[in-house]
């Protein structure tokens, strides 16, 4: 159990029988009824929310849809922390616990090494104390990390795995990858975590049991995919978010590789480009990308090329370094035009991209009115919410 003394100082008390969390040595099963909500999606329909329940070892979708975002903005500094908003979810989403997948400009998720993490933590600027926007922390910052400082004097010990830690106003958590020499680090400003922890008020369902970055939540969204399970958790997944693209390689269900695709644009920018190049209005873009009336491949190709190059590099890395041979790649998060991306991948790498429904592998409710009708492409918008809930339910520290 961790006790926070000040904003930046915490002490850890180890209770007998593994109580109070810890470094992952004693793992327990997560809650059985969780609503996953993507916070800050920017979707005009609202925040994607999916409530999952576990019955007899299987995950059931209780409800899915869009919920009205809370009144008030997430704070951008410590001073704004006092403007605490509260959020009440509709009845069908009132599970005991909520897992929030947060996508703001200040969150980050990256693969790093323990040494690099330590050096970075020791020398990190007071990012959260500065004006927001001056220094963006994101996937792109992976390349700007300082080199690992091996054996540097006064090196701070690496934080325990799976335990949220504060440093210089940033809340972060690390987990080792399947390849133990690497770790994955996820974080966001401390004041934002504190604000989010009180967003869902005490005494009312739900309250926050998990706050993850959106990209971190995506990592868990693939765990219940039937094809992923069939492959014994050995897969390469291409996550395409609104503003970034990254690869995640899995070995026996554990994360093995996390690589951001440098120079790649997210699907929002690609969609806007298609819209402009082909002279389409807002309603026509998705139909063009999902149907075969007009071939948007020439417009997509410049975006696809660096991504497919990185895909090839990643596949080669997994094959040579970890003997993980990939015959198909999951493409998740792309709400439209997945078939064109798969065709381009097959032409270039002879590897198809598979885009299953985000709800694949989950039991759908008997009453259809709690989940809107949608196809595989439209379901991708719920990926973050599903991933957040799955992570909170399946992986309890």
């Amino acid at each position, binding site marked *: 159990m961790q006790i926070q003394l000040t904003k930046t100082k915490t002490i850890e008390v180890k209770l007998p029988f593994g109580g109070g969390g810890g470094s992952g040595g004693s793992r327990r099963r997560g809650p059985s009824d969780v609503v996953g909500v993507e916070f800050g999606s920017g979707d005009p329909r609202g925040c994607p929310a999916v409530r999952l329940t576990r019955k007899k070892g299987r995950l059931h979708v209780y409800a899915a849809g869009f919920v009205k975002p809370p009144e008030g903005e997430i704070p951008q500094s410590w001073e704004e922390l006092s403007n605490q908003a509260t959020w009440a979810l509709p009845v069908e989403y009132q599970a005991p616990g909520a897992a929030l997948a947060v996508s703001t400009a200040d969150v980050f998720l990256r693969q790093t090494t323990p040494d690099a993490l330590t050096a970075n933590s020791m020398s990190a600027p007071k990012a959260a104390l500065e004006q927001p926007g001056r220094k963006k922390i994101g996937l792109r910052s992976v390349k700007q990390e300082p080199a690992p400082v091996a054996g540097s004097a006064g090196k701070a010990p690496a934080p325990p795995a799976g335990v949220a830690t504060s440093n210089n106003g940033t809340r972060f*958590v690390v987990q080792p990858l399947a390849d133990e020499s690497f770790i994955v680090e996820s974080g966001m400003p401390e004041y934002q975590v504190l604000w989010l922890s009180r967003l869902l008020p005490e005494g009312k369902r739900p309250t926050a049991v998990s706050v993850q970055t959106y990209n971190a939540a995506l990592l868990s969204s693939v765990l219940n995919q039937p094809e992923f399970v069939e492959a014994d958790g050995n897969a390469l997944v291409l996550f395409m978010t609104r503003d970034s693209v990254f690869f995640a390689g899995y070995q026996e269900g554990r994360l093995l590789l996390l690589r951001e695709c440098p120079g790649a644009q997210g699907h929002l920018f690609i969609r806007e480009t298609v819209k402009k190049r082909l002279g389409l209005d807002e309603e026509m873009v998705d139909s063009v990308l999902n149907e075969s009336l007009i071939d948007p491949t020439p417009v997509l190709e410049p975006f696809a090329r660096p991504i497919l190059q990185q895909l090839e590099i990643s596949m080669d890395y997994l094959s040579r370094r970890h003997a993980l041979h990939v015959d198909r790649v999951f493409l998740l998060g792309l709400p439209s035009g997945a078939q064109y991306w798969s065709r381009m991948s097959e032409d270039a790498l002879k590897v198809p991209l598979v885009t299953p429904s985000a709800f694949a592998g989950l039991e759908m409710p008997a009453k259809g009115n709690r989940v809107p009708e949608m196809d595989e492409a439209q379901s991708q918008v719920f990926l973050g919410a599903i991933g957040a809930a799955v992570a909170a339910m399946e992986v309890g520290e």
Partner: protein
Amino acid sequence: MKSSRLHLNLLRDTEKLSSSPVRLRVMLPVMALLACAGCLVWWAMLATQLLLVKTQVSSLQDDIAGKEKAHANILAQMTEAREKQAQLDQLEMYSAARNLYGGMFARLAEVMPIRVQITKIEIPEQPPQNLMPPGGKGKPVWGPTGTVERMSMRIMGRTPKETPVLSLMESLEAPEFTNTLVVVKDPRLPDASPKVHSFRQDGSTTEDGSRLLLFDIEYRCQPRVFEKPQPPEPSRDEAGKGKGDKKK
């Protein structure tokens, strides 16, 4: 497939809020207050009960103190009554142990042969026994030590010859004497009766010059039984009536 360990939760356990409307941090003080109030009520009840019991105890003690003299008086009376009853029982036992010899003596005169002169008839008195246990202080308490007291009768007299004495002894074996005297003729038995202590010639002579014989015979009498008399048994008629009633 191994555990994925992909839950990169930025929330600490201490920051997780309870969704239950019953909040521990609210309920704990409330429960503590309720527990304190419960303890106070319990203590008040105990104190009331203690006070009540103390009052009852003092009233009972006063009552006992007031009755101590009467209680001592009753105890003394009960002791006296027991003593009196013991005396009465003793008297009843003495009464029951009384042996009547008058009839026997009257009949003895009738059966006495002419040639026998009785010089002495003695029923020896048993030496008094001290009932006080050894080492006991105070006046000795005389009385029988057992419930049965052996009695005997000695007949001493003179006769010119042996025959009249034998005749007397035969006469004393008659049923009218055996109610009082016990006759066990076998001389080998230790409690044989009569026992001839002496049968010898007297030094003096009669008028006709013959020598007389002196005899000393001891007869065992029925013992004195110091027991309370048994209540009279119901007569046969009454017993028959009882049986008849049962049969009915």
